[in-house]
């Protein structure tokens, strides 16, 4: 999980892209501070997608689709359920972009939730229910995910297959 210092809400999306040397070769870190406004979700998804798929990185059509939906889900959850759409709070997005895998975390400033109460296999709601599919989608679109113990940060792994 990233070690962010949470501060006042940013007025603009701000991306920090940093090359990081590592034992398996260098990788790139991308960080964004996102206002708690669902109107920002599409722009953030586009930014993350662009950074994850630029350069020599392999990105299949399905990888990009899964990435975009998963990021949109995690952001919506952080903005609405986590920060309660409080515009004084921000959501932090952090990505480690490697040749074969993308590690993404989305962290809100909310109180979190009881992670131990999460079912190991999120069920689908009744067909006629209009909500309750977010975590189900994340589970099926990413290769792995987990919440931090506090429940205010989700980390997702997507392999570039």
């Amino acid at each position, binding site marked *: 999980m990233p070690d962010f210092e949470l501060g006042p809400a940013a007025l603009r999306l701000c991306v920090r892209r940093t090359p990081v040397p590592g034992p398996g070769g260098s990788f790139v870190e991308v960080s964004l501070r996102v206002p708690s406004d669902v109107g920002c979700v*599409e722009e953030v998804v586009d930014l993350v997608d662009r950074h994850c798929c630029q350069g020599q990185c392999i990105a299949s059509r399905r990888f990009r689709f899964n990435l*975009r939906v998963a990021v*949109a889900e995690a952001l*919506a959850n952080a*903005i609405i359920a986590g920060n309660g759409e409080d515009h004084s709070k921000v959501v932090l997005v952090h990505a480690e972009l490697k040749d074969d895998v993308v590690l993404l975390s989305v962290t809100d400033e909310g109180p979190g939730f009881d992670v131990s109460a999460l079912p190991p296999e999120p069920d689908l709601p009744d*067909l*006629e229910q209009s909500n309750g599919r977010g975590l*189900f*989608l994340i589970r099926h679109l990413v290769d792995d995910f987990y919440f931090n113990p506090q429940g205010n940060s989700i980390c997702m792994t997507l392999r570039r297959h």
Partner: protein
Amino acid sequence: MGFALSKVPGGVCQVRVEGQLIVGNRQELKSVVQEAVDRGERKFLIDFSQTGYIDSSGLGALVSLSKKVREQGGELRLAGLNEDLRSLFELTKLDTLFAIADTPEQALAGF
């Protein structure tokens, strides 16, 4: 980006989803369709030919709209989903709730 509603032959309201259908704009789609229902429209075709991705909020908006239209004796159909979008409906089993045609023309033919 947005939702373009047009009336096509057969008395069907066709709504093109240009861009994404996600948490940030689902309410706009709901308003566009609800206003048409309030005007007496009963047949709706949501065209995803120009759509990139849909999130769970977008899926939920479609579920909600479909229910409202059916309660008024109407029908809401979907068309133009690419392979990725169709996989979302299959994954969530919503392909069993909606009538989904490959193309808008095919959907309109059976209305």
